[in-house]
């Protein structure tokens, strides 16, 4: 039971890191992370014949491209973030279909080492880089933005820079997550991003319940991720049919938020994370 949990957690780790930055720290209704996840996989597919580091770079650039577009819509065209994310999702759905040609493509890039080793390597690198960044001035700035976006209007710090940087890095992580998922499954699929947001919210709420902190902390997504897959594997072992799992997640989020708000007497923000 432990190995499947670790295996799945490592695949989903980059995605959840990205979601932690945009959902939990910046507190943005970042539905475009779905597109970043898918487009990261698509860009990895396009770069499939290149050496592995370039495939990973392409995946992160694919995700970052989605992040750059949604941030531009929000910061320069002044669209509300949710609307910008919906428009971006629509645009990248069409772009993905155009690049792939069909709704599914086989994906088997040449690796220098085993998949598992790659997952561990990517996980360690990301935890290191994101973990250090979260303790930096920029990491705290992301959390300040989530706490009070108006803060930057009263101080010289550029709120646009903070949003751009956070969203682009978050989406780049999600793009790498999409690549790892596609690599693990052996195909890139137009519907592989369905349910991604529900997964992120569930895991982040779990992480927030277990690690009580308002400060940027890498442990929140890490612990949330492991807890999520522990719950999932336990439920599978007791016989829950996987097709009902999304419904279960929704109910789980409701129950967790209800308990949290009752116990802590806190008012929930718009994402609950």
């Amino acid at each position, binding site marked *: 039971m432990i190995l499947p949990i670790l295996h799945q957690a490592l695949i989903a780790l980059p995605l959840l890191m990205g979601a932690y930055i945009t959902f939990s720290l910046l507190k943005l209704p970042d539905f475009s992370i779905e597109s970043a996840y898918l487009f990261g996989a698509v860009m990895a597919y396009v770069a499939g014949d290149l050496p592995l580091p370039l495939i990973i770079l392409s995946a992160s650039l694919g995700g970052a491209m989605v992040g750059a577009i949604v941030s531009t819509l929000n910061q320069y065209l002044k669209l509300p973030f949710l609307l910008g994310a919906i428009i971006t999702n629509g645009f990248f759905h069409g772009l993905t279909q155009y690049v792939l040609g069909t709704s599914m493509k086989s994906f088997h890039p040449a690796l220098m080492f085993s998949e598992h080793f790659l997952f561990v390597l990517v996980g360690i690198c990301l935890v290191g880089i994101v973990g*250090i*960044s979260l*303790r*930096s*001035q*920029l*990491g*705290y*700035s992301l*959390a*300040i933005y989530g*706490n*009070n976006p*108006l*803060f930057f*209007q*009263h*101080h*010289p*710090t*550029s709120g646009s*820079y*903070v949003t751009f*940087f956070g969203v682009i890095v978050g989406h780049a992580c999600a793009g790498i997550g999409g690549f790892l998922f596609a690599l693990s499954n052996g195909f890139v699929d137009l519907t592989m991003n369905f349910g991604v947001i529900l997964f992120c919210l569930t895991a982040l709420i779990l992480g927030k319940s277990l690690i009580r902190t*308002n*400060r940027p902390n890498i442990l929140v997504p890490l612990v949330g991720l492991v807890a999520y897959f522990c719950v999932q594997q336990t439920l599978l072992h007791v016989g829950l049919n996987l097709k009902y799992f999304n419904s279960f997640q929704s109910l789980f989020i409701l129950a967790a938020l209800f308990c949290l708000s009752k116990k802590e007497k806190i008012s929930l923000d718009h994402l609950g994370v």
Partner: protein
Amino acid sequence: MKVKNLSFRYHKRAPYFFKELSFNLEEGLIHALHGKNGVGKSVLLHILSKRIEGEAVISGEIVAEKSALMNQQFDQALACQFTFLENMQFGCLGRFPSPFSCLKAPSYVMQDHFLKLLEKFYIDVTIPVCKLSGGQRQILALLMKLQRETKILFLDEPTAALDEQNATMVFEFLKALKGVTILVVCHDQGLICRYTTGRHLRMEMDSEGLRQLK
């Protein structure tokens, strides 16, 4: 601070809002700006602190050191889930915060003279800002501005959202500041009379809608 022949219009074809206003504010004192609601006190503070944008037409001369404007919505300038000390650290962030450097050290942001001031107002710098009183939060917002070597403070009804005790605390804090020139708009005449050490400027509107200072 010296203001000479300051004129202002909202746009090229608009009538003059102010015309050739001139006044001086002596350094290190608390000056008061009086006037009815809507007469243009906030507009003047925005112009003096150079926060007017758009098509506005401004002429004249403003000779002033580094200034900052603070209004009654001081909570907008704070990150309330973080501590007083952390907010002071956030106040030192540059325009583009680095992903590689840490926040400034607490000893750097809490200089001795700030610490002495805070002791006087019983402010615990280690608890989240949302648990402080309104007056203490206003003091934090002002300290964050003063960290940047601000020499002139324009305060637009800084105590409007505070009760009497907290409003007095804020004015006691302003009185304790050394070397900072303050121009304050406040409708509480008792506080203004007690704490103003400099000039009392009064803004009035004439029959043609032109604002004048007396």
